């Protein structure tokens, strides 16, 4: 019975992070950087998020493809 919080935590981790930790970390960095930019300059440039997301996806795809090529 006392193990269910652990099971829920494990499920949440698998759900959000799973086998692609680079995506979870990357998204946290992108949102954090956008917030910092918006605090510093009043508003964050709108293009920053989409460009960063495309770079993150490219990195993750490259990682996934090379892992499966091996």
């Amino acid at each position, binding site marked *: 019975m006392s193990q269910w919080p652990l099971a829920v935590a494990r499920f949440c981790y698998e*759900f959000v992070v799973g086998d*692609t930790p680079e*995506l979870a970390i990357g*998204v946290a960095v*992108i949102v954090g950087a956008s*917030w910092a930019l918006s605090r510093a300059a009043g508003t*964050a440039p*709108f293009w920053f998020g989409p460009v960063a997301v495309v770079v993150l996806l490219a990195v993750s*795809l490259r990682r996934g493809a090379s892992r*499966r090529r091996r």
Partner: protein
Amino acid sequence: MTGTVLIALAVFAACAVEMVEALTIVMASGLTRGWRSSLEGAGVAVLCLVVLVAAFGPALIHYVPLDVLRAVVGSLLLVLGLQWLRKAILRAAGFIAQRDEDDIYRKEVERLSGIPRQSAGRDAVGFVLSFKGVLLEGLEVVMIVLTLGLSSGHLAVASLAAFAAVLVVGAVGIAVSRQLREVPENAMKLGVGVMLVSFGTFWGGEGVGVGWPGADLSLLWLLAGYAGLSWVAIQLLRRSRLTPHLGEVG
């Protein structure tokens, strides 16, 4: 209006994809363990999912400030959408095998047929299997319904779209009386991934103070941009898969 239609479409497609996967489990369970226990298990799971949406949806709207909600929800949508998109691109490019519902169904039927049945009453194995299958596949849908519905303020639209997908896929599955292997699952997953990433970028940005030019209309160029780049990624990956690498030559 643009946003509302896109939300309904995204939730419907995401829910339909998950429902096809859940249906494979319920069909396998129903056929081998009896329909009554399997349908009861699926029904109880759907009820649990509805309770989750009803419990968390209104509570989050009332107690969490909208900007915080959008930043958190936008981040979650981005992670979830990028996971879907990545997997769909790698599948389309041939790096991951396509999901074969027929094969999964066959293996599940084979496995379940080997477990002895109770002589009378409900079959616990059938109930639990259907319950777990529908609940686990449905949790992702609940997450999408909550995140999309809350950020846009259209929780009812998102819930109705999910309910419609459950009805349509369920009805078609029962009508043809088998799992739906003809559904273009990967193409739908790719489409949902593009939509989730677009919404995630938009709301995540709004939550932390990004001013989008054209407000909601930005969603359209985000969708077009991500869809176009996904297509480019698939072509590049297909080519790289077919091209021998320097280390592999000789």
